[in-house]
């Protein structure tokens, strides 16, 4: 599949076709991840489009996206595989009267039909083409899981004691995302290419609004972007990302807004900033912010 991608420009074209607005750096990172078949570790603030990269990639390559959402306590049975216990027990009951030996029975119930493939195994066993495997918010999983992941990511192979090793038929393209809740281990980082996505520039954000919310009026889009740019400069507990910008744009369109006014902003502020402290903060700074957004 990566055969179709021969240069960074190809990746840019792919992204553009899927309405993902990325800069040259993002395109280069994706290109290298595809060509070198290395996992791509994407870090950045919440809501800057990390997860979106994997989704776009899957859509652009026309392949399946397999997603593993990480959380604390995530373990092998939810990430890789699990035996279908209920089905196994039923089968044992059914076989009670049969003349099979214990060894045969064991081989029977520890076989493919009783295996529940979880995302990692699904990605490795994908039959038709290389899927995109998204390991989302890897920083939320604990260190033990990271260590386990290393084996999978370096060899693209896992071992199930009852069945033996399973190696990937088509190497999946792996995208890992992290919010930097904790520092990832060096060993994991070493196997990955690293991409840091920052908050977008004004031009990039505007392009994103155009691509994602084409119904937004030109003047309003500019105002939104300038407002967000100014908003990210003041000190907030949680600075809004692109996701918030798009939500806000959508909200303003629903309200048939054509221009930012203090009333409109006040009534929709909860879409953009999401803590009491921040809301108070923004309301205090509103005249200045608005001036920057509307002038020009």
């Amino acid at each position, binding site marked *: 599949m990566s055969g179709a991608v021969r240069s*960074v420009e190809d990746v840019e074209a792919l992204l553009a076709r899927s309405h993902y607005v990325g800069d040259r*750096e993002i395109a*280069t990172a994706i290109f*290298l991840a595809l060509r070198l078949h290395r996992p791509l570790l994407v870090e950045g603030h919440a809501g800057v489009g990390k997860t979106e990269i994997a989704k776009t990639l899957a859509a652009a390559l026309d392949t399946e996206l397999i997603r593993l959402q990480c959380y604390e306590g995530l373990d092998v049975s939810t990430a890789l595989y699990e*035996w279908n216990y209920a089905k196994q*027990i039923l089968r044992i009951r059914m076989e009670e009267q049969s003349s099979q030996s214990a060894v045969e029975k064991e081989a029977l119930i520890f076989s493919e039909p009783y295996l529940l493939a979880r995302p990692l195994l699904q990605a490795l066993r994908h039959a038709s083409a290389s899927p995109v495997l998204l390991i989302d918010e890897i920083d939320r999983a*604990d260190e*033990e899981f990271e260590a386990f992941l290393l084996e999978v990511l370096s060899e693209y192979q896992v071992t199930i004691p009852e069945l033996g090793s399973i190696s990937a038929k088509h190497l999946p393209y792996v995208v890992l995302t992290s919010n930097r809740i904790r*520092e990832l281990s060096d060993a994991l980082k070493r196997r990955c290419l*690293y991409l840091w996505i920052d908050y977008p520039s004004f031009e990039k954000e505007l392009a994103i609004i155009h691509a994602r919310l084409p119904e937004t009026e030109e003047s309003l889009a500019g105002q939104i972007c300038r407002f967000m740019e100014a908003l990210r400069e003041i000190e907030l507990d949680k600075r809004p990302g692109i996701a918030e910008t798009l939500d806000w744009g959508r909200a303003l369109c629903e309200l048939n807004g054509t221009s930012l006014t203090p009333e409109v902003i006040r009534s929709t502020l909860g879409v953009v900033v999401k803590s009491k402290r921040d809301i108070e903060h923004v309301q205090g700074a509103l005249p200045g912010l608005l001036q920057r957004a509307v002038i020009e």
Partner: protein
Amino acid sequence: MTPMADHHDISIARRDENLVNAVVAFCRLLLERGVKLHADASQTVMCALAEIDITQQQDFRNALLVALLQRPEDRPLFMYLFNAFWLVAPSRSRRPIENALGLLGRPLDTKGSLQRSNDEDQKSQSQGTLKRGSGSAVEAEPESGAFDAVHAANRGKHISTIDDSTDQQMAELERLARHLGPLLATRRSRRRVADRRGNFPDPHKMLRSSLRYGGVPVELQRTSRRVTRTRLVVLCDVSRSMDEYASLFLQFAAAVIRRPWKVEVFLFATELRRVTRSWMHQSWTELKRMVPDCGGGTQIGACVTNFVHDYGNALLGMRTIVVILSDGLETGDPAQLASAMEQLRRRSHAVVWLNPLLHLDGYEPRAAGIAAALKYVDLFAPAHDIASLWELLRELRMLAGRGRGSLMRQLARLASNDFGGHRLAGVSGS
């Protein structure tokens, strides 16, 4: 992003061998300047460069970025070094490798100033407060006169217990550090481990063992939740007013860092510095020289704010206890300290404030800074000798094992009235 002029040419692209040498030299340069790299970084770079058109300068740089960098903090430094290394104007055309060797040779202070200038770009908001001298601070804080008096009257009192790092003291600190880990291991993880006396069934294991009995689950196999450690973040004041007091605690911190407990150490005076990694493999005698000499006042508020901003996501959370060692003599804005402490408190399991002056006669935490901060502190304790450190360990265990519910109640109570005497050994009521 640094704009780059197009006439600059990546002159080493001509020959492969040169490219390899240059990449290796560049990696060495990055490492020397404190950018974090993998062991096989240059190899990754070569693989990446093989895929792209290296005559495209921007792609070339992006490929290096993607293949080399591991932390966003390193980005500004990387950009600077990239420009310095690869983008030599043809007129001055020294070859990149010589160029690199030139950069490698320079003494370390260049690095310091370099980083500072990058930091300043990023943190312009804190500049205003950072530039204020200690002179204006005295005016800002009427109580500090009385504070200084206590300070002066008691000067020298502690010296017998702290000053020299004798072998015996070191051994005792090592013992303390060893004890700290198990004391903090009180949290129940979501992760399960096999345990005969556990509370949860283990279906996987049960099915396996049931095969022995023809599918009848005879033995109940159990798991329980594993116990994990609370993280400890230490913020240590090394300003001049503290330098006689901080040494014992720093020694303790150094001993703790070398253990595999989850501990992070930061130093601060007017700015914050993370020292966990650089301290990991050093002995105390080497470290003593590395503690920066910070004259001037202490910007506790600004430093704690910076900490919450820059490291909050990575280090704070409901399993983190923050320990601050400071005399609380704030020269910045007490209101900023209060708001920073509130954030710190909200985002951590507990906050401990150690004040080495607390055992001194006549000392009361009345300076505006510390008075503002105390509201958000779970434990306010002295840390002037070994005995007080043992006491601290005991208190830390209580804090680590305590649920957050009781904590919030106490916080509410604290916020609503006074502390009932300033020398509370601990606010913990468990």
